[in-house]
Each structure stands twice: as C-alpha cells, then as structure tokens.
C-alpha cells in the first residue's frame, strides 16, 4: 500500500532552482532515504508533502489525501522534523515540547519523556541558549513523541555528535520494527546506509535514481591513501594498479566493487601506512552521473 505518493511534481523557482517532474512513492512500512547534495530540492519536495507549498504541476498525496488541501487531516498521523531548527525562542525546551504536544492534542507525555531520556536531553533551559545539537534533539522529540505512523524527517542527524547519530539510527530501527513508514532526507551516505531500505536520489531538482540500498553500496567507492616504503614503489603501484601518485610515497586509489583483488594486489607491495575514507555523495554523483550540467 502506498503511503506517500509524489507524482510528477514541478515547482519552478526560476534559474534552475526548484524541483522538476519529481516522482517517487513510499510504501507502508518502508524506510526510504531521500538523498541529494545541498540545494538539490529535498526540502522543496518535503515542503510540498507537508502542505506548506503547492506544486505548480503534479500531485502529492499522503494516505491518498492531497497534501495541501487535507494537510490538517494528514498531520494527525504524521511526525515531522524540519530541516531548519527554529522554535519559539522565548520558551524553554520543556515548555516547547509540551506546547507542541498540546497543539497535537496529545494527553500523555510519557513517550516524550522516554525519548528525552534516550537522547540524554535536558531541556530545562531556554531554547535561545541551546546548542545546535540540543535543539536538534528537541526537534526529534517533537517529531517522534506522537508515535505517528508516518515520519517525514529532513536532515535528522544534522548537528548531532557521532554518539547521538548512532542513537538516532537505533531509534529508526525500532520505529521501523513497529511498522512505521519513514521518509528521511540526507546529504550523508552513512546515515541512510544504515537505516534505509531504499533510496531516492535527487540532483538539481530531478530524480536521478531510485534504487535499493544494496546496489548503491556495491557501486560506492572507498578512497584509499596508501603510503609505500619508497617513492619508486609508489609510482610502480600507481602504474600497475591504477591510482594517482600524489608525489612522495603516497598513492590515492579509488576502489569500487571488487575489494578483494585490490587488497591482494596491494599485499605484494611494502606498505607503511594506509588510510581510507568513504566517498562523499558529491563524488558519487560525479562518478555515476557526470559533472555539473549547465
């Protein structure tokens, strides 16, 4: 059953900004990552799902209801985390959470308390004085406390430290086990990699790919920085195995897919040090979809 249906929406803000003919669906119980670089149109799409903005063309529906016309009806079963944190600054964190709960017509605050404990959030102080990470936690509590069946999360882990990011991934897994339908935008691979069943990739306002997580992981490269014993070995390795000789004894190599043969080839050379990083989303796009279109 389709919970979220985005069908051929266009919202043109001029000079290439906006979204163009975007189509994707989220099925019941699915966790979908909405992936794209900054400014790709993720938030623009989410605003249309929230009924903040009306598409110029196409339609957005949640549970079969038009997102603009029926927004207040849809909100009854939706938890939302905005991409930009901006609360009523004059309130304390606790007051704000309680206010949002009341606005949602919730009677119990047990779930909110549970979440605050889980994220080790002390929301006594005024929001104005909170760090970005703390504000993000307040936002997360507001989105999840209602135990809604649908969750729309715009860059949920921004501002969180790695420990809290792990906690967030844990939370998503739990919610997924409960059968929640989740759409979550991100510009970070790691975040969606660990949580999502499927990803929708958007770039420059257009959907470039809708894919399963596995295929994405298979195609994704790792970037290795290898330091050899001598400069000669480095240049030999670069020539034989492909890779960029950075000068000195360091070679950078990008590896996707066949990791085993790379490691085995490398084993034949005297290696002094090795460093690895994951490919960024931008690099991934460059690799698969070419450079910036003008």
């Amino acid at each position, binding site marked *: 059953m389709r919970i979220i249906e985005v069908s051929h929406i266009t919202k043109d803000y001029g000079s290439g900004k906006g979204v163009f003919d975007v189509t994707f669906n989220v099925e019941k119980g699915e966790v979908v990552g909405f992936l794209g670089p900054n400014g790709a149109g993720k938030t623009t799409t989410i*605003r249309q799902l*929230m*009924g*903040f*903005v*009306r598409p110029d063309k196409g339609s957005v529906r949640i549970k079969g209801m038009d997102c603009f016309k029926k*927004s*207040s*009806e849809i*909100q*009854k079963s*939706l938890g*939302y985390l*905005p991409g*930009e944190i*901006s*609360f*009523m*600054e*004059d309130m304390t964190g606790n007051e704000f959470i309680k*206010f*949002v709960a*009341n*606005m*949602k*017509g919730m009677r119990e605050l047990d779930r909110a308390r549970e979440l605050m404990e889980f994220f080790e959030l002390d929301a006594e102080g005024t929001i104005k004085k909170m760090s970005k990470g703390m504000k993000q936690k307040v936002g997360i509590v*507001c989105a999840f406390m209602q135990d809604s069946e649908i969750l729309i999360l715009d860059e949920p882990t921004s501002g969180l430290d790695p420990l809290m990011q792990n906690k967030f991934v844990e939370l998503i897994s739990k919610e997924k086990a409960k059968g929640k339908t989740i759409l979550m935008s991100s510009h970070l691979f790691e975040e969606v990699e660990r949580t999502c069943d499927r990803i929708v990739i958007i770039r420059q306002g257009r959907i470039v790919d809708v894919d399963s997580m596995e295929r994405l992981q298979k195609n994704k490269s790792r970037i290795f920085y290898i330091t050899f014993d001598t400069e000669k070995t480095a240049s030999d390795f670069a020539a034989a195995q492909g890779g960029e000789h950075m000068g000195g004894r360091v070679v950078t190599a990008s590896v996707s897919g066949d990791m085993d043969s790379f490691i085995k080839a490398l084993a034949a050379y005297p290696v002094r040090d090795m460093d690895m990083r994951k490919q960024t989303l931008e690099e991934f796009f460059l690799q698969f979809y070419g450079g910036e279109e003008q």
Partner: protein
Amino acid sequence: MISPVLLKREAKANWKLLLIILAVLTMYCAVIVIMFDPEFGDSIKALSETMPEIFNAFGMGNTGAVTLTGFLSNYLYGFLLVVLPLVFIIILANRLIARYVDSGSMAYLLATPNGRVKIALTQAVFLLLSVIALNLFVTLLLIIFSKAMFPGQLDCPRFIMLNTGLLGLHVFLSGLCFCASCIFNDTKRSNGVGAGLTIAFILIQMLSNVDDKLESLKYATPLTLFNPDNILAGEPGAGISFIILYITGLILFFIGIASFSRRDLHI
C-alpha cells in the same frame, strides 16, 4: 474554530508588551486628566494661539473645549490614543504571523492537526482581544480618573461613544497590520507595509489638519473616519463612519487569513 492552546501561548508570550503599553497609556491619561484645570487650560490656550499649526497637526486644535469630555477628546483622542496603541498593534500583528513564518517556527504550528485557517484565526482573535482589552482599560481608567478628580463633569454616554469609535479605528489599523503580516514572507516587508501604511495615514492626517489648503488630503486617509469632534457633537454621520472602520477592519482580517491559508510558505 480557534486553538485555545495557541491563544494561551500568545498570552504568555505577549503580556509584557501589553503591560508596557498600558503603563505608558496610564501615564499619559493621568497627566491629561490632571491638566484639566481651568487656569492651566487658559495658559495652554494662550500657548496654542502662538503656534496653532502644531496643535492642529496633533489634532489638539480645539482648545476652546471647556468641558472635561471635550478636553480629553481634544488632547488624547486626536493623536496620543491613536499613535501609542498603534505601536502596540504594529509590533503584535507582526509577531503573530510574519515572525513565525520568517523564522520558520510556523512549521511546528502547521505540523499539528490544526489547519492554516484555524492558526491564523486564532492569531487574529488574539490581536482583537488585546486591542479590545487595551481600549477597555483606557476607557475605564479615564472614567475612574475623571470621576475621582472632577466628579460629575464627564459626559459618560458620549465618552463611551467616543471610545467605541476609537476601538473601531484600532480594529481597522489592526486589520491592516495583520493583513500585511499574513501576506508577506518576511518581517521586513510585513512591517514595512503594515507600519508604513498606517504611519503614512497618520502623517497625511496631520498635514490635512495643519493647513486649510491641504484639508482635502483628509480624503486620502481612513483616519478621517474617526472624528472625535463629530462623535461628541452627536452628529449622525459620525456613527456610520466608525462602523465603516469596524467593517473594513474585519474585512482586512478576513483577507489576511484567506491569503495566509492559500499561499506558499517557505518554512
């Protein structure tokens, strides 16, 4: 139709602002009532004769007023009780919608099962209630001051009529500022248009009061519809003109809410 939770939150967030404006109004009202002293009246009349334009500009030209009601009307209802509450209205109207949209916190209000019309209507009701409270306070304050200091000298029915007219003007000004707050995405433009227009109206009225040659300017400002002298004189047209203010004000609120519920919000 409206959200009591939001209404309560606004009361909590804005009571200080209301308190400040009430304190300022109390001070001015007290000073003017105390100034109603036949001798002092003479000296201020002499002063006004030396610079009639200035007194006219501030709507205080009718210094011949000898009754307490006339005196209050001349010194308070021509300018002070229009402009001071206007400052409050401009700030509050901007806070209630435009500031939430500008900062993005409107997203949290709309991410609840409360539709846009309900949110905007709640804010409009809050603004109207505040303005009514403010007017009620001023009316009662002046009646109490007058009764205490000059018993029997205030023409209560006429005075209440005058305040009903003033409330009409405030409803109109609130409608205008609220409408601007609903239509524009950022506080800069909301304030620019809301405050800009209302202040322009006041300046036009001041100009039209100064010089007979500029008198026709009064048709360019809706403030002319609130005419304290006509209300006190019991002219039948005065009532109709302030009813027009009430109606236009409410229409402006309605336009604001309609616009807010239809437009794209980039929050």
